[in-house]
Each structure stands twice: as C-alpha cells, then as structure tokens.
C-alpha cells in the first residue's frame, strides 16, 4: 500500500489503454437486395408475403420466421401512409453528449404489414407526435440503396 503523500509523486500504473479497430461488411441478402433496389430505383417500399399466414413482412424476408416457409415471389409495394407504432425523443448521442436538438425516433408500421421500419421523424414537434399518427417517407434525391435513401419520415399530407 502507498502512503497518501507518495501517491501524488508517482505516475498512475493502474491501466493501459487499448483500441479495437473493427470494420465489417454486412451482406444484404436476396431479400435485402431486392428491398433496397426498389427504394433506390422506384422510391418504393416492398414487403414480402408469406404464402402460409398471408402476412406481408417488412423489412421483407426470404422466409417467414413464424411459419418457417419461403416467402412468395410476388412482392407488394406499400401504398398509403404508415403510422407511428412507437416513438421516443432521444437526448444524447453515442458519445453520451447532449444533442443540440433532441431527435424523434419512431417505429413506423403500415396497416397491411407485419413489422415496420425504425427511422427518424422530422418536420414535427415532439409534443405533436402521437401513437397512430399517419406518416410518410421523405426520399433522398441521390439514392444508393440503403436505409439513408429515406432521409426521414414526416406527418403525412392529407391525414
């Protein structure tokens, strides 16, 4: 044990610092590729139908996780607005620093699908958001086939 007066004179020997550099590729898969291609090329959200339970899956999958069967080949584009299934207002970033402006994160569902999309909700004040609120995507002009092809969701016009 060190006496208190010794501690002040000595460098800290208690730890070393390390870093973990990690970069990775994530394969979209057959279903993901088709989903993001339709977003990029047609500004469309596609859902894949299960031939057994008849549910439309979003994000689309090549299989229905509940029925354990391959989904059907004919995918359906979502028509009409989505709705807010869940939401929160986040106040910190990944470094635990306060965000300049708190951001609304929403889980967006569509009446005809099982599942949904998590995305940011903008063009609305947090106090005005409510569960069930109708929302629509705002598409990026330059689209590359990824989640960011949708800039954010906003309250749907005429709803």
């Amino acid at each position, binding site marked *: 044990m060190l006496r208190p007066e010794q501690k002040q004179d000595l460098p800290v020997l208690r730890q070393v610092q390390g870093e973990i550099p990690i970069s990775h590729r994530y394969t979209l898969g057959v279903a993901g590729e088709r989903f993001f291609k339709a977003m990029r090329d047609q500004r469309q959200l596609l859902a894949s139908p299960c031939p057994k339970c008849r549910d439309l899956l979003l994000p689309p999958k090549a299989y229905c996780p509940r029925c354990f069967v391959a989904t059907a080949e004919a995918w359906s584009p979502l028509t009409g607005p989505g709705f807010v299934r*869940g939401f*929160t207002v*986040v106040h910190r970033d990944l470094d635990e620093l306060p965000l300049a402006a708190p951001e609304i994160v929403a889980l967006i569902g569509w009446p005809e699908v099982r599942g949904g999309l*998590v995305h940011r909700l903008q063009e609305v004040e947090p106090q005005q958001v409510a569960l069930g609120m109708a929302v629509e995507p705002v598409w990026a002009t330059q689209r590359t086939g990824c989640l960011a092809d949708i800039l954010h969701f906003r309250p749907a016009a005429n709803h």
Partner: protein
Amino acid sequence: MGGERIAIVGAGCTGLRLRTPEASFRELVFQAAQKAYADAGVRPQEVSAFVSVAENYNEGAAIADEYVPDQLGAVLKPVHAVAGDGITGLASLVMQLETGQLDIGVIEGHSKASNVLHPAHILALALDPIYTRPLRFHPHYVAGMEMRAFLAATGNTQEQAALAAAQNRKNALANPLAAYGASLTVEQVLASPPEAEPLKLGDIAPPADGAVVLVLARESMLGTLKGKPVFINGIGWSQDTPNIEDRELHRAAYAEQAAQMAYRMAGISDAASQIDLAEVDDTFSYKELQHLEALGLAPPGQAGNLLEAGVFSPQGRLPVNVSGGHLGCGYAHEMSSLRSVLEVVLQLRGEAGARQLPGARVGLAQSWRGIPTASGAVVVLGRE
C-alpha cells in the same frame, strides 16, 4: 425437474462498486471464487464443470472466455462459455449436472463496466447493421419506445416506474453489496434529465463493477459438502426475435415464456401466491413493472398499483428487489442476474442481514439480456 435435484451450495460476491481501479477482473473473480469455495466447503480441484458468462465487446477482447480458467482454479478442466445472461448460463450448468456425469459445478459472472469507455457505441453494435444501426441513435431509444408502449398499453404510469426506481435505490441502503443505495423521491427521479422520453436518467440502472461465483452440486453430493443448500426447483429461458419491428413493443413475451417453463418444472400454478420473494430485472425502472406482469406476479396493468400499495416493498406480501435490484446495486453486465440469484440464496438461507425477510421459503430470480434484446431467463429457488 427430470433427474436428480440440483442445489446451489456456495456463493461468493465481491460486492458492487462504481470503480475498481486497483483490481483486474481476474482478481475480482478470484476474490469471489475464494468466498464461494469456502462457503461451499469445496476445493476447485473437486469441481467438474465450469460455466462463464461474458460478452467479448464488454471485455475488450476476442474469444474472451479463454481468459476464464486461471482465476477460478479451472485450468485443464471442462469450461463452457455461454453467450447469454447469468441465469441462462446457470441453466446450462444445471443441465450439465443433470447428465449425472458431473458432480459439482461452478458459474462465474463479472463486470468491469468502469473500463468500458464507450458503452453506447458497444450497445449500438448489437443493433441490426442494415436496418437500424445506420441511424446512429443512442440505443437507449429502444427502451424509450418500449417504455412508452408499455405505459400506454397497460395503464401503468411514469410516476409508478419512478417509484420502482426510488424504492430499489432505497432498498439498496440495507445491502452492503450494493453500489447505489440512496434516499430518492419519485419527484427527484422524474426531475432527472430525459434520456429517451419518457425514460429519464433516474430510470436507468447505473453501471457497476464486481464478480459473483456460485457453486452447484447434485443432491447426492450434499452430504459431503458443508454449504447450506438452496434447490433449483425450476429454470426456464426464452428468446424473442431480434427484429425490434417484429415484436409487440409493450410486452415482455420472453419473460412470460421463460416463467411458464420454470413454473412447470417447479410445479408452480399460482406464482403470485406461491413465491415469497422475487428479484426481477430492473435495468430500466419500467422493466420491473413489465416483468412483474409477465411473470404473473401482478395481474396485467396492476404492477404499478400494487407497487404503490406497498405489496412489493420489503414489508409487503411479495417483496421485490429487496436487494436494491440493478437500480440500487448497479448494472453489472452478465453478472447482474447472478447477483439477483445470490440475493435469493441469501434470503432463503436466512443470511441476508439487515434486509432479511422472515420465513422466505420459495424465491424467484429473473434476467433480461438488456437492450436491444428480448431474451431472458427465470429460476425458481427453494429451501427444500
């Protein structure tokens, strides 16, 4: 249970602390193991099965379970690393002993949360890399969305969630192992900074360091051991889909399923009347209420009301998180739920000191693997 009964015969814990800069995680585990082996009256040479629970990213190392043997006395012994929470690891050890091929088993869980310098970045790596992670939100958003959905669907209130936090922090004052004992009012919890609305800072179990080691044995071994046995009467675990958008946000379906499995094994038909105390995951305050309902310890929509009525207080009919829970003891990664099990063991043995509950015979401990998962486990423990 199917074959021979399995008992917890020894327990050791370092106690939880905000920081442990003087001791490595190996030294923490060594301390806990020494206590557990002394408690059970075994030497590590007599142990035939070891289980460890840990996540690589929190350890800051790849294949981190390779670091397990030395500090447990487990070199050149069968070691099984479980990528899951503490009670899921416990289930694995119970199954190993149930084979009848192994007599005495040990499980360890530890936390060096204070060494994890970017916890939110690590948690974000658990989000789907294609569909959710690219948004780069603090992963607490999942808890915020869940909390809102749970409160809206069940009628429980934000004030009642805050009361769960205040009560657990208060309970922790009587637990020398706990890191975050405090006298807090509901108003103080509600006045804490918003994190992911309606979730506030005061609703979140703060991180802590520590280690827990438990020693288990088959019933036929009990005559040769000095440890006071606490029997594992039932254990269950369940995992929901990893896709946040595919779940019912308000529901802890994994806890419902895990409880049914454990209750079936333990012969529990009415949990609320047959369980004497429960250590329930409260990594976030609302989770305690959600889990109580999922476990059948409160009727749907009633957890908050029963909490307000004092049913779950240390003097109530069904004390919950009398240890202080994770909110009061500290969230300690995969070790967290082994600490919950430890509390039930101490209570059933009558060794819980100032917080000892009178006459506790059957106790429950429940785990949740934390956001963004919907996985968890339940164990029912009994004095006989």
